[in-house]
């Protein structure tokens, strides 16, 4: 059986800077992958290329056996690969439900069905009490949940979560952890980019570590934590690993 996502030689240059260099990895269905690395190592650039927001300089991305590199973001999304944004991107002047409806419209044309779907997803992320609140009036944790609900409404097979735990308090991280784990048990494959190590280490089945755009390690969270190359990359950030 082929992997759900196959990335081969993915590279992105900005002028002379190589942000992502020859990245190759696979993600199998049902997996929870942690994509980690120090600041500026190319994680978000990788996400942007996977989701179609950014065109790769070279390399291929195959999703369920179909090549998707270079497709526009909306096409990628409709193929079942959704993302959340590191900096939350709500539609500020409409309600939480309407925000999620935009995603739901990928699979339905009718307003009523989309609204039902949206309310369902808001329930799933625990945002039902805020369903009719304008997005601009939500707190950061609520907005992060809204990001996930929007992405879920498109019924993704693969979900890219970009720093959903960053900026949250410790209790809030626990809430988010529970939520993401549940999504995975419900059958959604996830790739997580995250700085909060407790979050990644608790969730991931497998971690891919990148530094300066290149992959430096891969393995279970324990293996990665004990890898000297990873330690070297994180030198000075060691405290946050433990």
């Amino acid at each position, binding site marked *: 059986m082929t992997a759900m996502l196959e990335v081969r030689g993915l590279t992105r240059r900005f002028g002379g800077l190589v942000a992502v260099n020859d990245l190759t990895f696979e993600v199998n269905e049902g997996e929870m992958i942690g994509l980690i690395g120090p600041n500026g190592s190319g994680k978000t650039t990788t996400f942007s290329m996977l989701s179609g927001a950014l065109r790769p300089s070279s390399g291929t991305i195959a999703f369920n056996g179909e090549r998707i590199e270079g497709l526009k973001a909306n096409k990628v999304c409709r193929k079942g690969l959704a993302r959340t944004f590191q900096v939350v991107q*709500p539609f500020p002047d409409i309600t939480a439900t309407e925000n999620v409806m935009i995603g739901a419209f990928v699979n339905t044309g009718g307003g009523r069905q989309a609204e039902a779907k949206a309310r369902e997803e808001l329930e799933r992320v625990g945002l039902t009490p805020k369903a009719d609140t304008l997005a601009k009036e939500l707190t950061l944790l609520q907005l992060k949940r809204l990001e996930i609900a929007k992405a879920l409404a498109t019924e993704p097979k693969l979900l890219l979560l970009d720093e959903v735990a960053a900026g949250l308090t410790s209790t809030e991280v626990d809430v988010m952890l529970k939520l993401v784990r549940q999504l995975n048990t419900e059958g959604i494959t996830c790739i997580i980019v995250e700085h909060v190590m407790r979050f990644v280490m608790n969730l991931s089945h497998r971690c891919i570590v990148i530094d300066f755009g290149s992959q430096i390690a891969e393995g279970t969270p324990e293996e990665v934590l004990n890898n000297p190359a990873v330690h070297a990359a994180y030198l000075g950030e060691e405290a946050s690993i433990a």
Partner: protein
Amino acid sequence: MNLKMPYIRIVVIGALICLLPLVLSTFYMHIAVLVLIWAFLACAWNIIGGYAGQHSLGNGLYMGIGAYTVAYLVNRFNLTPWVGLVVAIILSAAAAAFIGWIVFRYALKGAYFALVTIALTEAAVYVVSNIPALGGAGGMQMEYRGNSLAYMQFAGQNGYFYMGVVLVVFILLLTQWYKRKRFFYQLIAVRENEDAAEALGVDTVKAKIKANVMSGVLCAVGGVFYAQYFLYVGPRSVFGEVVSVQILIYAIVGGLGTTWGPVVGAVLLVPLSEITRGQLGNSFPGSQLLLYGLVMVLTMMFMPFGIMGLADRLRQRWQHRSATPLVDSQGGEAS
């Protein structure tokens, strides 16, 4: 709330408006027809400007295409305006699709989009002024052929008035219907946050082109109506920056991206400006546009969401306050 309610409201208000000819004098009936023309055009602009958030400053282009098409076909080939209407719809759709395709493909937005649209409508003024077949700078008079629906011409204002009511009711029902549909949600998503919209499967370029075509075609229909009412078209009366700005002022003052906003704006401003012009026009030319300028500045400063937008916000706040405060149980915060 009953989902049919907004539709019923539109039809009932439309029916009640039809009683106006019983009470209004000729002068006020003329103003009423003007209100309907501009309300219709403003509703049409609202689709691209209000819902999709692309502030076109050049919708006079489409209005002009509509007005000139019908005037030319009626004058030159003696065709009924209904044929002209169909041709105008086709031409404006083609123009709006082509312009939208170029402009949105190159991701022009905000101020740049506004500038391109101004340039296009102003260029149209100069092109039309140089085509003798279209009457050049002087424009074209249309012949009055008698009181007949087949010629879309009526003796007195009442016929035009009922036609205007039908058009405005139609565009309001259309807007209201689309409001629950995927297309308008996608437009709002484009307006609010384009990157997020793309990430949620919205083809933002396609959505914007569709909105531009819809808005352009409806503006052309408004232009046909305008030409039939005045029986005259001139380069600056249907093309150009001033007309384009006039179209959007009503929508902005009434409330961008609301069903009723453009109508409310036209109902308030058109009579006010016509009466000002009637009273002061001779001694103070320009008083009408001066008034529009003032209203525009004050709207932007004190109620940028327009009258209906302000009403919506006040209602939301009131509902918010009356509802029991909800505590987010899982997150634990009490905001």
